[in-house]
C-alpha cells in the first residue's frame, strides 16, 4: 500500500503517466541517501536504520534500494562492497583483498588507551554493574562509560538502583566476535590465553 502511495507521489501530480525522469531522479537520490548512510556509519546498519534515513516505513522498498546499490557496487568493480549480513543488516566495507595494501594509512585508534581498558573490562565481565566497573577502573571510568555509550559500543540498562553494562552488536561486529555474549566471552578468553601462551613461549 505504502509503496503504491509512494510511487504515486513520485509521479507528477499533474500527469498520471508520470515523467519518468523525475522518478529516476528520486531513485538516484534515494540510492545516494542509502550510500551516505552506509558510508558515514562505517558499521552494519539495520533495515530500520536505513528506513529512518529514507524517511519511509516500507522495509521492502528500502531492501530493494539497498540491493540495487549493492549490485551497482558489484558491477563497478570497486574496492568497496555492500554486503548483506544476517538479520537484514547491511554494511559498506573495504574488500578484504585491499586491506594489506592500505593498512599503513590507518592511523586513528578507535579509542585512546583509558576508555579501551574500560571497554575490554566490560567485554570480559559483562553483564557487569557500572558500580563494579568504577571500582576496578577508578572514577574516570564514568567518563569512559559515557563515551562508550555515545559511540554505541556499550549499552546500559537499569536494574533497580544500579546500571548494568554490556557490549553492543556494534562492538561484536567491530571486533568480529559473536553476538552471543557467552560465546563472545569464550572467544575473548581463548584469544587471551593463546596470546599469553605465545608470549610465554616467546619469553621462555
Amino acid at each position, binding site marked *: 500500500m505504502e509503496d503504491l502511495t509512494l510511487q504515486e507521489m513520485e509521479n507528477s501530480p499533474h500527469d498520471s503517466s508520470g515523467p519518468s525522469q523525475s522518478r529516476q531522479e528520486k531513485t538516484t537520490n534515494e540510492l545516494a541517501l542509502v550510500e551516505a548512510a552506509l558510508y558515514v556509519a*562505517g558499521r552494519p546498519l539495520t533495515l530500520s536504520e536505513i528506513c529512518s534515513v529514507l524517511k519511509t516505513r516500507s522495509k521492502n522498498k528500502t531492501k530493494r534500494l539497498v540491493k540495487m546499490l549493492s549490485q551497482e557496487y558489484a558491477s563497478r568493480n570497486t574496492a568497496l562492497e555492500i554486503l548483506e549480513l544476517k538479520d537484514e543488516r547491511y554494511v559498506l566495507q573495504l574488500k578484504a583483498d585491499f586491506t594489506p595494501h592500505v593498512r599503513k594509512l590507518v592511523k*586513528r585508534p578507535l579509542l585512546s588507551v583509558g576508555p*579501551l581498558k574500560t571497554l*575490554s573490562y566490560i567485554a*570480559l565481565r559483562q553483564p557487569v554493574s557500572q558500580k563494579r566497573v568504577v*571500582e576496578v577502573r577508578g572514577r574516570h571510568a564514568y567518563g569512559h562509560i559515557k563515551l562508550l555509550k555515545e559511540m554505541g559500543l556499550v549499552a546500559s540498562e537499569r536494574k*533497580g538502583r544500579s546500571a548494568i553494562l554490556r557490549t553492543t552488536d556494534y562492538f561484536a561486529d567491530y571486533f568480529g566476535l559473536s553476538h552471543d555474549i557467552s560465546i563472545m566471552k569464550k572467544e575473548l578468553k581463548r584469544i587471551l590465553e593463546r*596470546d599469553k601462551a605465545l608470549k610465554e613461549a616467546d619469553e621462555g
Partner: protein
Amino acid sequence: MAATAKKPFYLRPPWNILFEFHKLEKLTPWNINIAYLLTTFLEEMEKTGQIDFRASGVALDSSALIYLMKSKLLLKLEEPPPPPKPLQDFLPPPLFLPLRHELTSTTIRHLLEVLDDVLKGEALHRTEKAPAEPILPTPSEVLPQIDYYLMEIELQMDRLYKSLTEMVKGAGIIQFSTLIKGIARLEAIRTFILLLFLAQEERVSLWQDEETEEIYITVGGFDTARNGKLTP
C-alpha cells in the same frame, strides 16, 4: 458576643486560617507556622474536649495545602537567575565538519593487550558479589519512636472485634459513646481508628446519625441502616 462563644474554638485565630481558605490566599505561606498551628490545635481540642474528627481532617488538609504552597515557592526561588545577556555580535551558524569515514586501527589484539592490565587492577578488589538485594534499614532506623500500639494494630483490631462481639450480643448494635464510656481521650481516638480499620475490612458496619452525631456500630456485614431500623 454570645455567637462567638458558641463558635468552636478552631474558628478563632490563629487556627481559623486552617478553615478559611479565602484568607489563605492573601497570606504569604512563609508566615504560617504549620507545626505550631497543628500542635496547639490538638492541645486545644484535648483541653476543651471538643473532639471533632471532621475538623481534624480539614486542618490536616489545609496544612498539606500550605506545605504545597511553600514547596512551590521554594522551587520558584531555586530557578537559576537568567544568564547574563551575551554580547551582540553576528553569530554564524555552526560549521559542520565534512563527514568522512575513517577506518580505525584498533584491533581485538589491542583490546586484549590492555585487558591484562585491567585484570591486574581487578585483583586488588574482591570479586563482585552477585547483585544482592539492597539491605533495608530496620524500621526503628526509619521510623523513630513509632508507637508500639500501631505495630500491633492487627492484634488490637482482633481484641476490639472480640469485645464488640460480646457487647452487641442480643441488641446486635452498640453506640460509639457507650463503647468509649469512661476511657481516656487518647484511648477513645485509638478505638475510633481501630473501628475504621475494622469497617474497611467489612468486619463491622458504622453509621452516624446526622442530628445526634452518634455513631452506631454493628458487627459483621449486618447492615442495620438497610434493615430500616435506624433509617434517618
